[in-house]
């Protein structure tokens, strides 16, 4: 499974997204589920799935699916 597929599944599960949501275009606070509480759940789920520890600035900067992909690649996570 590719990084994008794994991350998409994390977003869907952590934010309890309904079917049909365009995960790739999601941005922080665009939807009700991705509020500050959802963000905490999402960060914890990403850290668990990819065995990484995000720094404070990364947690704050994680504002979209695309940013998360780039961040994980920067941390050495490959497809």
């Amino acid at each position, binding site marked *: 499974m590719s990084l994008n597929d794994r991350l998409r599944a994390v977003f869907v599960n952590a934010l309890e997204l309904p079917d049909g949501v365009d995960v790739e275009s999601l941005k922080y606070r665009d939807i009700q589920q991705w509020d*500050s*509480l959802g*963000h*905490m759940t999402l*960060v914890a789920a990403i850290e668990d799935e990819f065995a990484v520890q995000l720094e*404070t600035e990364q*947690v*704050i900067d994680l504002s979209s699916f695309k940013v998360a992909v780039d961040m994980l690649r920067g941390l050495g996570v490959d497809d």
Partner: protein
Amino acid sequence: MFLDDERSSRLRIGILNDYVGGFLNDVERANFLGLPPTTRIRERAKIISPENLSIGEYCWIGENTVLDASGGLTIGEHTSIGLNCLVFTHSSWLANMKLENRSGSDLIERKAVRIGKGCFIGGNSVIMPGVTIGDCVTVSPLSVVTKDVPDYCLVSGNPARVFQRYDQAWIDAEADRVRTENAARRAEAEAHGEKSSWGSPRLRLTPTDQITSNHNGEEAK
């Protein structure tokens, strides 16, 4: 039965204060404890070494919270500390390990804590000795704050970490949102002939909610 040494007499004052305070409401209790008259401090909250506590106006302290001011504790105005919170300014860890855990041990380590103004400390959180929490900080429930927290951010977890930074404009926008929602609820209450004294009026279930489940979580007929 009763001891009359200095320590016993000192502790007994606190015990009696707790007992008497149990009969008072939150504002009366604050007055009884010598806190600012705008303070609301709920049942069974406990202050250790209140002489070392500096607390601003309009603070709220929840049930069962322990504020240990023995090492120095400052709380800014308009800050709420939720239910069952523990704010520590001392620790006996070294006295324990040196097997010197006696009353009056000089191995008690004390470090002051400062909590800024406009903070919200969620219930069941722990603030460790020596920590400084900035202004307008939100600490999520069940967090353990082990290091300093800057102004205007949300922290969560054990150990607590920053999950969000915000500014005054964001706070103002959120305040507008909540005021608008509350105004709509009040208007709805008044439309039903109710008088809302504070907070939300009686919740009204939509027809969909009413047929979804009953009190047992079973589908209603």
